[in-house]
Structures are given as structure tokens and as C-alpha cells.
């Protein structure tokens, strides 16, 4: 099998007015169009996502932010009748190239869903699932260590360490969502995609998830879709604003919410529509 063609990714540049640390581009998206049957959901999206930062996608319902997020780990492949044009490159390799391995991609790009979706298995088996199917551990003790480490990283360990064998469905909503984050972290991905991970949670559980996100960006590249602009302001370094399937603006979060470049962004943020 030949390797996918190498793509020269543009240097990641942040707005000079914002004080952000220098980073390499992790994911480069160029002229991406996406179709559900004949309906075009995304129009010519060009965007660079830097490594080890949090990028938030905001925009009104139906603007395509979730669809776009799902193009980054080819999760839309499972929906019949969808089609992608353009290019998405991760570490300089086209993930939609015919030779690209989608299973390998999804191992590198973890995903946390809007509604927590633990498997109807034990807490331990949930976290161990990704490790087992990808055969990432060679012994039982290594598996146990990796599961414990993932639960610790997801700030869930102290709450579940005495009941790893009990059902994951017995956890509270916030715990289930952190379990899903632990499940994603266990296989040590490089990128974590989060689709409104706190939308169904109460304020305390939400703040736990948000703290976790800020903590995780030291190691991971994080992309988060959110409906909640305060949340985007709290957790993200960069914000991208989508409207009607188009990318309107990408900017440093601090500037996005104080002095956006685009009139449409300002209208949305100040609540004039959406």
C-alpha cells in the first residue's frame, strides 16, 4: 500500500493582535464541500486547526458545525448518500485519499458525542473497548493500567475506582459523559473532537467537563462544537463562526468576542439573530 500523497500544510498563523503561543497546523482543510444527497451542507470551507489548542465552532442550529466536525474523522461516511469534495489533511496526509485507512484515522482522531453513549457494558469494559479492538496492550496488567490512567485523565477515577465492574449505565449523566471522554482518551488519540459535550449536563457537571478540556489541551488538539458562546469564550483559544454552511470567520477567541472582523459575527454574538 502506497502512502497518501504528502500535502504541504500552510504554516499556522494566528491573528497578530492576539497573544497566542506559536503552533504547527494539525489539520488543514481546503475548499471543503459536503453534500447530503443533493443538499449542499458545507460550502468551500478552508480552515487550519493548530495542534495543542482548543478551537471552538459556534453558529446557529443547522449551520453545519457538527457536519464539519464529523468530516474530520470521516464519521459522515456511515450516513448513506453523503459526498465530500475538497481536501482535509492531517499531519500533511489527505484523510479522504483512496489509500487512507479510515480505521487508523479514527484511532488518531477521537470523538465525544453530544449525547453520552456508553456501551451497555461495565465501566472497565467501556474504557477498555478501544484498547482491545486496536490491540494496544499486550498484558492484562497493562490494560488495567491504561484504563486507570484514562479514567484519571478524565477526572472520573476517584468516583468509579471501587465499582469498575458495575454497569456504565448506572452512572449519572455527567459521569457518563466523562466516561465517554475517558474511553476516547484511552487509545491516546492526537485529536479529540467534541460535539456539544456538555449540552445535556447540569452546571456543575458542565464546569467539570470544561476544566477537563482546558487541562487536556496540553497534550491534545481539541475541537469543540458548542451552542453556548460563554462556553466557547471560557474554554477555547480560537473560535470559528459558521453560518448557513459557510465559514464566516476564524479568530482568536478573545478578539472574536470583543472585536470581530466580520459584521455577521458581531451581529450573531450580540444576539441580533440566531
Amino acid at each position, binding site marked *: 500500500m502506497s502512502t497518501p500523497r504528502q500535502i504541504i500544510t500552510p504554516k499556522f498563523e494566528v491573528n497578530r493582535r492576539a497573544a497566542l503561543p506559536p503552533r504547527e497546523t494539525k489539520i488543514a482543510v481546503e475548499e471543503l464541500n459536503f453534500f447530503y444527497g443533493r443538499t449542499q451542507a458545507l460550502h468551500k470551507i478552508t480552515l487550519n486547526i493548530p495542534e495543542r489548542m482548543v478551537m471552538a465552532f459556534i453558529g446557529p442550529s443547522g449551520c453545519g458545525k457538527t457536519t464539519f466536525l464529523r468530516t474530520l474523522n470521516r464519521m459522515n461516511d456511515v450516513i448513506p448518500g453523503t459526498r465530500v469534495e475538497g481536501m482535509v489533511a492531517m499531519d500533511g496526509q489527505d484523510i479522504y485519499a483512496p489509500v487512507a485507512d479510515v*480505521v487508523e484515522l*479514527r484511532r488518531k482522531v477521537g470523538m465525544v*458525542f453530544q449525547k453520552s453513549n456508553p*456501551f451497555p*457494558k461495565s465501566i472497565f469494559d467501556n474504557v477498555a*473497548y478501544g484498547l482491545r*479492538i486496536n490491540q494496544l496492550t499486550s498484558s492484562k496488567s497493562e490494560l488495567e493500567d491504561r484504563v486507570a490512567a484514562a479514567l484519571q485523565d478524565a477526572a472520573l477515577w476517584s468516583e468509579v475506582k471501587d465499582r469498575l465492574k458495575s454497569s456504565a449505565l448506572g452512572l449519572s449523566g455527567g459521569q457518563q459523559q466523562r466516561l465517554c471522554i475517558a*474511553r476516547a482518551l484511552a487509545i491516546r488519540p492526537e485529536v479529540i473532537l467534541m460535539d456539544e459535550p456538555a449540552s445535556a449536563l447540569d452546571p456543575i457537571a458542565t464546569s467539570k467537563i470544561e476544566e477537563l478540556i482546558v487541562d487536556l489541551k496540553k497534550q491534545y488538539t481539541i475541537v469543540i462544537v458548542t451552542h453556548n458562546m460563554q462556553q466557547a469564550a471560557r474554554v477555547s483559544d480560537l473560535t470559528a463562526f459558521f453560518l448557513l454552511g459557510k465559514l464566516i470567520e476564524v479568530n482568536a477567541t478573545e478578539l472574536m468576542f470583543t472585536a470581530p472582523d466580520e459584521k455577521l459575527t458581531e451581529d450573531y454574538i450580540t444576539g441580533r439573530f440566531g
Partner: protein
Amino acid sequence: MTTLTALCTLVAIGILAIILGYIAMRGIGALNLRFLVDSPRPVGEGGGIGNAIVGSAVLLLLSCAVGIPLGIATGVYLSEFGGGMFSSVVRFLVDTLTGIPSIVTGVFIYAVVVLRMKHFSAFAGGIALALIMIPIVARTTEEMIKLVPHSLREGALALGAPQWRVTLGVVIPAAASGIATGAMLAIARVSGETAPLLFTAFGSRFFPRNLNEPIASLTVQIYNYAISPYDEWHAQAWAATLVLMTLILGINILVRFLTRKKF
């Protein structure tokens, strides 16, 4: 409205209770340990249904071994991998198969298996019963697997699981208790079947020695005794009916116990 529905429920359950009670009343008289382990004897000498109990168990095992895997595989195909013209046709055929009278299944197996082999056999009986099980298992499996939320599949796919591992490791276990209920239903259904066994397994008055010869079954034994002119055999038919119903109830409870929701 509540009263009306409660009344209807009472009538339905009442009829069931009367049937069960009547069978118990008529059957208990001839029932004893010898009856359960002996083979049949000529009229007036007692005898039992031991061979029929063993025969029914053998036939049931044979039909499960063939019918349940095929049925589950068909159901999984229809819900997880089907979707085109072909699966619509398969689904229609499966539905049609469910509606085929069991005697027709018996005649069919007689024509294609018994006539070829030139003798009745346990094999033929097992295949006939399996043919009745497949559509029941297939349709319940399909429905149960469709109930598994899509988000579970996506969760597994997002961890880098290939489609077949998602189906085997997440989807089927999540639907397991439903699938088991379907298999259960099929077992309960075929363990009461007489017609497809009449000219496939045929019946026998001896304990089964191999699968290539005619084999006794509780239902055929009940049929043969019930149409006989002897009071003793009538009493034995009632007792055999009681045994059959108890066994079916036992299977039901056992499977419920084995597939109770762990998670």
C-alpha cells in the same frame, strides 16, 4: 376504559388459567416417575413417555442448532447490512415463510428429505422444525437490533472499530436479551408442533439410538394416544400434555434467567 381493558385482560388470562388447570387436573392422575422414564408398552401394561421426552429434546436441539444461527444471521443481515432491493425481497420472503402452515413445511421436508433418504428420520424432523424457527428468529432479531441506538454504533466506530466488530461486539450484545426472547418464542412455538413431525420424524416406540432413524416426540405421542380408542392411552395423553407444558414453561423460565439484564 380502565375497567374495560382490565376486564378483557381478566377474560384472556382466565381462559388460559382454565386450560392449564384442566390439563393439570386430567393429567396428574397418570403421572408418576415410571411414566416419565419408561418407554411405551402395549395397552394394559402401563408404560411411559421417557423415549418421547428424550426424542423431543433431541429434535429441539437439532432444530435450534440449525435454525437459531441461520435466523440470527439473517436478522443481523437485514438490519445492519441490508437496505437495497435484495433485502426487501428477503424480508418479504421471511414474512411469507412465517405464515406458511406447519403441515406444508412437513410435506415439503417429506418431499425433499424423507423421499430422498427413503426413510423417516430425526434429521428430517429437526430440519422441518428449524424451517419454522428461522423466520421467527430472523424477524425478532432484526427488530431488536434496530432498537439499538445509532449512537452506540457511532461510539464504537469512532474508536476505530471496523464495522464487523461493531456488530459483533457492541450491537449484538446490546440486543442480546431481545434476540434470546425471539429464540425463546421460536423454541416455544416449535416444541408444540405436531404436524411437521408426522411424516418427517414419524414417531417411535423406542428410545432413540441414532439420528438417522425415526424418533419419538411428545407431540406426536400425544396425537397418537389421543386418537386411540383406549382409556388408558387417553389418560397417558393428558399426562404427556401436562409434561410438555411444564417443560415449555421450564425452558421459558430458564432462558429468562440466563438472559436477564446484567447491564
